[in-house]
């Protein structure tokens, strides 16, 4: 997208009827939000009609991301990869988080296969108000037996709603897998210099996105992409190879060079999502634990450096949890303040005798405290004080959290109408404000734990 794009460039292509169907006052407001990427193009319904088809295409050309967005689908879920506008997140924001796939193989006994697939689907972690999850199942053919692969794909489809990546270089085996993936668009992995014609045919026939695999050879990668595009296949994903051990440098170089070619050179043949395969760590000799470590840090490296999808093998929490948190962090929109609305929140079914606690409106702090209250199944009120999105420590040090502000929040929240008592639990890290808060608010202060994980125990012992 051109950085200097003005809302006027968009406005002149809009219907200019001010129909408000997009939820905004007028077409100019829509144009402004569209340029700021705060609303999607599809929100403008009239543009979807045939009358405006050409205008819509023109607008799309103005606002489309540099990187092609590719969609991988199951009958009920879709995973978008790519679709990025910038090389570095501080230049704007990243859009589609790295999709993480965990593998299953076609030599697994059916019960083990089902168990693993369920584990992949159910892997979940609550983190600041969000459920972090894995996104894809990568089905690998280790048997190269079309029948076995087909059966495996069938079982996977029956047991998960997650979209798939189908992995084999053998077109016959791939075809068998694709024929079992009904109403889906699995990602085909992969076309190589040896099988590209057959894989290209399959991608066309089944209308599925296709991975181009050219290990450590970007020239080959480009020529295969060119061939596929001439063939009419546009939904492509690139794999320049993920090399463990001392190949890690080449891996990072290839990923970076491809991304730089896309963003700085406008190289259309390389403006596609990238897939990394940290699972290659398992092909090395050595201790299993070493392979697990290496797979983990390769994944970390590629989440930070440009991978739009990853395939890993290890399904243990110690390896995956840090990966999905890293992904969540890197894909956080740097333009948005990480704050929640100040005010009063209720947990459980509080009554007039229920405890009142307070915390700051820094999202990370708020959701951490909220999660601890929820897991303790407390019935209580939580007063969220506006600290301009700062944590307790920083807010106290920077005078954004003061006794005055707490006293004002108590008053504004009207909590005094909800409870009979006048006792408030304050964060342990705000302990030095306790006297002043009592003075300004007239409430009695109980100094809570330094970390909110101590809330359940604290409430049990101290709240009478």
């Amino acid at each position, binding site marked *: 997208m051109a950085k200097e794009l003005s809302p006027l460039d968009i406005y002149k292509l809009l219907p200019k009827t001010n129909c408000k169907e997009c939820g905004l006052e007028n077409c100019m407001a829509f144009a402004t939000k569209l340029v700021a990427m705060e609303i999607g193009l599809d929100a403008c319904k009239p543009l979807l009609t045939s009358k405006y088809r050409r205008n819509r295409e023109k607008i799309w050309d103005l606002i489309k991301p540099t990187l092609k967005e590719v969609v991988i689908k199951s009958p009920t879920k879709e995973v978008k990869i790519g679709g990025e506008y910038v090389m570095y997140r501080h230049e704007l924001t990243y859009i589609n988080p790295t999709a993480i796939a965990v593998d299953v193989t076609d030599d697994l006994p059916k019960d083990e296969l089902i168990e693993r697939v369920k584990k992949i689907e159910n892997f979940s972690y609550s983190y600041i108000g969000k459920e972090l999850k894995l996104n894809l199942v990568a089905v690998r053919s280790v048997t190269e037996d079309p029948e076995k692969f087909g059966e495996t794909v069938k079982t996977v489809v029956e047991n998960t709603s997650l979209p798939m990546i189908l992995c084999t270089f053998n077109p016959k085996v791939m075809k068998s897998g694709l024929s079992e993936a009904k109403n889906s668009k699995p990602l085909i992995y992969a076309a190589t210099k040896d099988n590209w014609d057959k894989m290209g045919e399959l991608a066309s026939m089944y209308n599925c996105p296709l991975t181009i695999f050219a*290990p450590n050879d970007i020239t080959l990668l480009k020529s295969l992409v060119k061939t596929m595009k001439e063939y009419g296949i546009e939904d492509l994903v690139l794999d320049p190879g993920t*090399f463990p051990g001392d190949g890690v*440098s080449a891996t990072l*170089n290839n990923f970076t060079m491809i991304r730089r070619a896309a963003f700085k050179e406008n190289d259309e043949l*390389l403006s596609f999502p990238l897939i990394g395969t940290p699972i290659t760590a398992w092909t090395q000799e050595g201790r299993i634990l070493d392979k697990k470590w290496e797979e*983990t840090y390769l994944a970390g490296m590629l989440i*930070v450096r440009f991978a739009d999808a990853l395939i890993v093998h290890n399904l243990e929490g110690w390896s995956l949890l840090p990966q999905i948190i890293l992904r969540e962090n890197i894909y956080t929109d740097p333009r948005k303040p990480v704050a929640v609305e100040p005010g009063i929140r209720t947990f459980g079914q509080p009554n007039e005798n229920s405890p009142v606690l307070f915390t700051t409106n820094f999202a990370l702090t708020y959701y951490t405290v909220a999660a601890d209250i929820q897991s303790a199944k407390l019935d209580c009120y939580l007063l969220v004080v506006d600290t301009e999105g700062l944590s307790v420590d920083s807010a106290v040090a920077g005078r954004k959290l003061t006794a005055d502000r707490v006293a004002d929040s108590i008053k504004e929240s009207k909590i005094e109408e909800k409870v009979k008592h006048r006792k408030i639990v304050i964060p342990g890290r705000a302990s030095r404000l306790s006297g002043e808060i009592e003075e300004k608010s007239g409430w009695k202060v109980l100094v809570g734990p330094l970390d909110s994980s101590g809330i359940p125990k604290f409430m049990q012992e101290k709240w009478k």
Partner: protein
Amino acid sequence: MSSIPISFEKYEGEIKEVEIGATKTEGGTRSYSVTVGGDKYLPLYSFEGINPNPPRIAHEVYCYHAPLPGSLFNFFGDLVDNPVEWSREAVNKFKAEMVNLRLTDAFSIRNETFKKEISNVIEEVLQAVKVPLLITGVMDIIEMDDYRKNNEILTKSAEICEGEKCLIGPVYTNAFQEIGKACLEKKHPVLAKTNMDVNQALKLNTSLLNLGLTNKEIIMDVTTGALGYGIEYTFSTLERVKIRALRGDKILQSPSIIFSSESWLARELQEEDKLETEKTGITFEVLTAITGIMAGANISSSLHPEAAKLINEFVNNFFNEPKQFITVEEWLKTR
């Protein structure tokens, strides 16, 4: 390497080299010194060019009241509260190239009786290990008085370590003079800490340069949090500072540091009885460090020796000549 026509950025600037640790010939007692920085290209992009000094790791040793979660207490055992022995173990057993002596947190520095003891500890550690040292004071300012305590304890440290070229800090935008002057006089590099803001980093570096220090005597800590707790800010600030320095902003042309040890503050790691907390923590630390290193950190201050080992392994892979790539196709069929 495959060739594609891509534009190589031409960098006007380069990061200055900072030396930590003075050997006998330089007037100290360290058995070697470590040079960090000197970057001419973005970190680890060897297609642009190879930077002269790989990122280095300092092993952390806490004086007292180490803020460790249960799994780390178990791991370090008797070494906790025994900083001299801990330093020795870090060097001899865990092969630490540098030791970061953390003079513990603000809460305990507030306790006057520790001060004298801390001086003794520094002297004993200087005797016990001969690797270059980092000496870090109050990293978590909670009230104004913490600045005074930090000044006091670090100024004292600069005196005790005269001639050793220890990296001493943090200094802050509103509390840099005393420590800065002491380091200038006693010839120590300074750790300059700001909070995830390029302009703050510029401001503090400018102050230190005005004081008479040079970019060869400053290491910047522009980070704010580890994995799960603000690493996105850490990452982007490090990256912006590095890109800006390489593009020619002279004021920012000093190396950077990341504290992967911060990872252990993550709440995911506080439950003592939870299975595999230690392994999860090591992973948090490794991912924090490599994220920081990729964005431009020249030093990682790390806590768990296994994490330090893995970070080292990751970094070394970039500086070894590749032998023979394995055929990566094999993973498809690996059972």
